[in-house]
């Protein structure tokens, strides 16, 4: 147990000392995971809305695939992205393997199902007559989407947080497609794995603490937004 305290103390020390490496890793983590989450939202919410509101052939299968996506192991995603980006792969010529871009792609694929799945669930839980009212008020397709997002912000913010959580906490895919290269693609989780393997449990915990504090800060903000407008 005292290891945990050591870890927390170590985290405080590293930040206090302004350790260049940890700051760099933290910023990189934030940048990659935010980019992945933002992309996942842009693609995922409209997709969730379409799945929620339109009936079409193959929809059921698609919904099940989205849900399966939530249980898709990061290692599998990582492997698939790697196979595509490896030199021998179809997009090998782009030279994107072991770059932050590759990591954004992998994390996007990981968080997308979360975002789609929860957008779907929360938009489906809106009274369909209220959606009729939105159209009736003269909203076009994008305005309806905007109103749906407004109405379901409770559920969607949960989706944002799950998506961001999936992206930032993930390690398997980041290792595979990022390579955990020092100074290039090392993020908090991959650094943690490394330190754990090195037996530096304190440092690993310190990195974990940083990650959790980071996630917590993001969540405090999002939760404040989420809960602000909730009225009994």
């Amino acid at each position, binding site marked *: 147990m005292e290891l945990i305290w050591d870890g927390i103390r170590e985290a405080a020390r590293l930040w206090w000392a302004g350790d260049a490496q940890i700051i760099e890793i933290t910023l990189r983590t934030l940048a990659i995971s935010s980019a992945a989450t933002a992309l996942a939202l842009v693609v995922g919410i409209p997709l969730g809305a379409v799945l929620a509101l339109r009936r079409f052939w193959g929809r059921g299968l698609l919904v099940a695939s989205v849900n399966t996506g939530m249980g898709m192991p990061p290692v599998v995603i990582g492997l698939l992205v790697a196979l595509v980006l*490896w*030199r021998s792969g179809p997009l090998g010529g782009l030279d994107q*393997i*072991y770059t932050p871009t590759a990591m954004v792609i992998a994390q996007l694929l990981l968080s997308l199902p979360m975002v789609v799945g929860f957008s779907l669930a929360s938009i489906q839980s809106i009274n369909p007559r209220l959606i009729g009212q939105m159209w009736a008020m003269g909203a076009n397709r994008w305005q309806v989407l905007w109103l749906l997002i407004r109405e379901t912000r409770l559920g969607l913010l949960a989706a944002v947080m799950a998506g961001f959580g999936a992206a930032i906490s993930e390690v398997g895919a980041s*290792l*595979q497609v990022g*390579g*955990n*290269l*020092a*100074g*290039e693609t*090392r993020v908090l989780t*991959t*650094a943690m794995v*490394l330190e*754990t*393997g*090195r*037996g*530096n*449990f304190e440092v690993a915990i310190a990195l974990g603490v940083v990650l959790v504090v980071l996630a917590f800060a993001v969540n405090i903000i999002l939760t404040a937004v989420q809960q602000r407008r909730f009225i009994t």
Partner: protein
Amino acid sequence: ASGINEDELILATTTSLNDSGLLDDLAPIFESETGVSVKIISVGTGAALRMGAEGDADVLLTHAPEAERALVENGDVSSRTLVAYNDFVIVGPPDDPAGVAGMRDVSAALRQIAAHGASGAEDAAAFASRGDDSGTHKKEIALWTEAGLAPSFDTDDWYEEVGQGMSATLTVANQRGAYTLTDRGTYLALSADIADLVPLVEGDARLLNFYSVMEVDGGKGRINSEAAAAFREFLLRSDIQAMIGDYLRAEYGRSLFIPAGGETESAVAERARAE
């Protein structure tokens, strides 16, 4: 002491050894002979040694002589015995831009790789380091030091720290057309999937890779010292030593591990230099 689970033995070992599959063959034999089940925990070398120091494992099987000796000096382990050895190889792209193929002097080869990497030549190849404090990484650092160099990812563009296990590092090197230092076992196991890497520098006695077994000190409490001792004995037994020597020999045409039960490192190195 009380509270010891006599029926199980926790063996902390390194990923590269576990990935070879050797222990999966040996453990069942030990289990059937003694009735003690072996829990093989495969982690990074650093973590394995740390588990020993904390008393979270009964017996350790690793390949980082310097770090192991520190454990002995600290009294964390009550014994350290050589079990087997094999060797490290520097592998790299077949076109070998630094031109180190066939060199026997590791130090010279490393200097040449560094120089060519730093030259900024168009075909300059990187060197991919494990960067994870594993036995292999420690060996690599020792070799650089011996060559009078101390490359770092911060200052040297051609030097990359992967921070992952051996197979991941080989994959990265393969993709990036980089040089790297690998243990022979992992290289052989992966060779089918890393066609863009070939062995370039090998045979230097400094490239030997020693695997030792250590019994965790019984004073740490709840250590199954009896089974740990039995496991050490077991590994040194001649029939088991023979099995180690034969492991996958048919498949690769050479021994993956050369038995050296109870010998000293210097003796083995001497013998190798003589060959």
